């Protein structure tokens, strides 16, 4: 195969160093695990790209709890997410999703920030974070700011990040009496992109859904929340009829396309199936019975 070409690699040890490079160098691009982007470096344009490797910056890596929030560094690998007791407890959907990203080799190398910034509509990290109401920290040499994760995605393979900005972190607030679930369908079981993926978050008030959030992946230009469905079922008594209703309503929210991995029709049907599975599991994890 054609050799890699058209770039150089800079490895700043600090975040400030990386941000300075991003803002001063023409044609710069951050790289973390590289699992999505390295194979694309065979057909870069004639203008050399300055890759800014975030791998040495310690403050961008790891999972911690602080002031009632869970913080996830963008260069945290999928293997780290999978090994995290904090996330297994506070965001089971995200923990489960990490299992299905890539292969063992990819999970050891690929990062959660890379998965999000690559902005694939099928990114498995996205629906779980969306239902946990995660926020993304936008970093530049100016003061950083937090945005709802949903706003990071602009379209397929597009984020709102400006040329001098990087995703500096993710955060969400763990909720007591809540549970979440991630469900996906791929063309085979392991090491495959999702044809459809779904995450559901439920919080219980006795037998009622105190809070419910639904996110759908690979059925729109970006991963999406389904607020119309959430509003329809929030506060109501949880049972199989409600699950059927949410499933049918979710199908209406999906705007899938036909592509090599599946048809729009199949995706719509599978959204219905996965929403049911995810609602049941999220509810059980919240301590509820059906």
């Amino acid at each position, binding site marked *: 195969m054609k050799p890699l070409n058209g*770039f150089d*690699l800079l490895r700043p040890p600090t975040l400030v160093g990386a941000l300075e490079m991003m803002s001063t160098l023409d044609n710069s691009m951050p790289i973390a695990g590289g699992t999505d982007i*390295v*194979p694309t470096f065979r057909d870069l344009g004639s203008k050399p790209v300055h890759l800014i490797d975030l791998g040495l910056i310690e403050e961008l890596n790891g999972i911690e709890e602080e002031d009632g929030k869970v913080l996830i560094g963008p260069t945290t690998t999928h293997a780290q997410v999978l090994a995290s007791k904090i996330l297994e407890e506070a965001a089971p959907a995200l923990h489960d999703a990490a299992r299905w990203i890539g292969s063992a*080799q990819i999970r050891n190398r690929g990062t959660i920030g890379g998965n999000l910034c690559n902005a694939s509509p099928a990114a498995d990290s996205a629906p779980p974070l969306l239902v946990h109401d995660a926020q993304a920290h936008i970093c530049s040499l100016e003061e950083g700011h937090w945005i709802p994760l949903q706003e990071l995605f602009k379209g397929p393979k597009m984020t709102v990040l400006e040329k001098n900005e990087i995703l500096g972190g993710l955060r969400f607030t763990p909720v007591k009496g809540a549970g979440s679930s991630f469900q996906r369908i791929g063309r085979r079981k*392991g090491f495959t992109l999702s044809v459809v993926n779904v995450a559901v978050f439920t919080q219980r008030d006795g037998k009622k859904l105190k809070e419910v959030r639904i996110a759908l992946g690979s059925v729109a230009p970006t991963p999406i929340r389904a607020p119309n469905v959430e509003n329809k079922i929030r506060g109501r008594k949880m049972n199989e009829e409600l699950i059927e209703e949410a499933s049918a309503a979710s199908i209406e929210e999906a705007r899938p396309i036909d592509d090599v991995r599946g048809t729009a029709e199949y995706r719509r049907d599978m959204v219905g199936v996965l929403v049911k599975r995810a609602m049941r599991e999220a509810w059980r994890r919240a301590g509820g019975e059906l």
Partner: protein
Amino acid sequence: MVNFELNGADVYVEAPATMTLLDMLRVELGVKSVKKGCEQGECGACTVLVDGYPMTSCLILAPQVEGRHVCTVEGLVDNPLMKELREAFMENGAVQCGFCTPGMLLSAYALLSENRHPSEEEIKTAIEGNICRCTGYVAIIESILDAAERIAPD
């Protein structure tokens, strides 16, 4: 200049950023057990251990292993666990063309280093990034179960 540890030895290589770890190992250092397959991180033939974790060397840029420990099957020739795995692979007919074997052995080695009693499902998860086009996986999975039993008979 990239300085890293390869199979226990300190090495220095003149390698540009556009060179992958895979090419640095095969072309510059002559480590031929690391195979070049898809060059997209899909097939696992180029798997190496970086600080003990299996990764596809085709997706790693040479300067990114500065200061890290890289291990290939050559570095585990005398390792007791790898020896059991090798023998189990041979006895169970888990090798045909051999192209996937070094990567497969490293993925299995990483699994058994962490988990001495893996289930069949855990083995499948550990090797899902290693494609074999000859034997069809059954003999490979049996070999890994077999090696696990030999190293931890209880």
